[in-house]
């Protein structure tokens, strides 16, 4: 009798293990999804805000230009850039040895086109996932690590709508597979 019970228990344990094993092999785990997002987006990556090197008109009422000027003035106050005003045009002049915060985008003639202000490094964390047809929808968060000294200045000056793109925020990734290719799109919430 005891022998039969033991065999029965053994069968149950084996079946359960096999079920668990096959599930872990064939089902897409959150870790795998995370790996796909990291590869495709990619993560970790710099959190950069780009300003054109020449701001056309300081008196213009264009909101974007006004915002760039505000940011440029704040960065000049921190000693990260220099501003040169020529008539109504303001030119951004980078300061030597600030590359870890202000990246200079040069063209093929090495003329400064824009500067990218590095706020920190974006990392990601997937929290939950579900499938919807051929799409896998992953919810998670984007973390901002290694913040630079320009981070707080920028996040204070950016309008509410833009802040989420440059700050830690909940994110949704949509993974879609077509013809053996993976396409990932990212939405900040």
């Amino acid at each position, binding site marked *: 009798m005891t022998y039969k019970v033991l065999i029965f228990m053994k069968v149950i344990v084996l079946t359960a293990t096999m079920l668990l094993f096959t599930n872990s092999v064939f089902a897409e785990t959150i870790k795998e999804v995370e790996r796909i997002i*990291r590869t495709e*987006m*990619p993560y970790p*990556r*710099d959190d950069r805000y780009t300003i054109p090197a020449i701001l056309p008109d300081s008196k213009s009422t264009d909101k974007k230009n006004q915002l760039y000027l505000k940011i440029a003035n704040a960065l000049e106050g921190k000693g990260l850039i220099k501003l040169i005003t020529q008539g109504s045009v303001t030119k951004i002049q980078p300061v030597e040895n600030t590359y*870890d915060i202000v990246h*200079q985008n040069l063209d*093929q003639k*090495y003329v400064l086109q824009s500067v990218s202000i590095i706020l920190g490094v974006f990392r990601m964390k997937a929290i939950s996932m579900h499938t919807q047809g051929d799409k896998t929808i992953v919810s998670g968060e984007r973390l901002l690590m290694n913040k630079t000294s320009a981070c707080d200045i920028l996040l204070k000056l950016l309008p509410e709508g833009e802040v989420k793109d440059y700050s830690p925020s909940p994110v949704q990734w949509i993974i879609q597979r077509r013809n053996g290719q993976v396409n990932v799109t990212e939405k900040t919430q």
Partner: protein
Amino acid sequence: MKHTDMVLSRYYSRFAIVVMVGCLYSLVASEIIFYLFKGGFYTKMNNHKSTPNGADEMKIYRESFSVQKGKRFRILAIGGSTTYGVGVNTAFTWPHMLQEKLDSNFPEKYEVINLGIKGGHIEEFIQNYYASLTEFISKEDWDNSLLNGTFKIPHADWGWKDLNPDLIIIATTITDMMNDFISERNRTAVFAQYLHHMLERTWFCQNMALCFYMKKELATIDFNSRTNPLDESRKLDLIQKDYMSHFEQFINLWRKDIPIYLVGFPVLFNASDGNNDVEKAARYWNIQDKSNLYKNVALLPKFVAIGQKVAYTIATKYNYHYEELGEEIRTLPFNDRLEYYVDSVHMNSKGTIILAEQIYDYLVDNKFK
């Protein structure tokens, strides 16, 4: 023969003679102007303000240095923007890090001079050998300035030859190759620029300039146009030939007893990378305009291959040591490779540290003590 036909035939024969004489004149005159522009005579006939080691003369270099050689073993780091340190703070340029590493192990023994120029190219290096430039001139402007700009290029009264090095490290550059592909020149605009400058000159100079332009145009047509995007393999061949001849010309300037170490640096894109990787890079750096990245993914691996071929050929011919540095970065998966670059060409401090260490290892292994 009718009268009109006779007039026409006379007209054509005269026209042919004028063209032939014109061509002959242009060829001879342009050869003379070439000679004048190629350095020797030109540099001798100009007197320039002499302020050795002055701040004005150092504009194109990342760190200042003394032209006068001291007791230390002098190493010249010659190269383009990666050597100059585009994308990194001064402390993280590879020549600076090499100097620090040498100083910590062999105090007061070595001196590394960073002669890297952003957008540096071999023709410019040749000019710098005779007289160091004091202002950055892009390759495109350099090409366009052959007629007029050369006289305006400000340079110092010392050249790289006066630095008396004990070892020269030359990094292969890609600017030499890039220009023809990346920025298609507007020939009409260039000619208009020439004419503008010619008006300020004497009759002789104006004619010389015109002949030089004509020769350049004829040569361009003969080469089946270097700006024709369809003829890529031919263009690459021409670029390789040009690069090889300039490189050899530069190497031959130096005394034969000075050892030369040739190095090649990796770029972001490998030949197997494609448009998907461009999208990743654009996301990684938050770049909206991806056009340059698309050009780079298609062309950079080809330019690097040319650089490697040329450096290998020269190293074999002259018995120099040549090494492709950063091989471990080159072989990484694309995402991991991205972490070493600030753009598709230039490395960040994480990458330049590796370059500096590998060069240091070479110096120690080869007993440059």
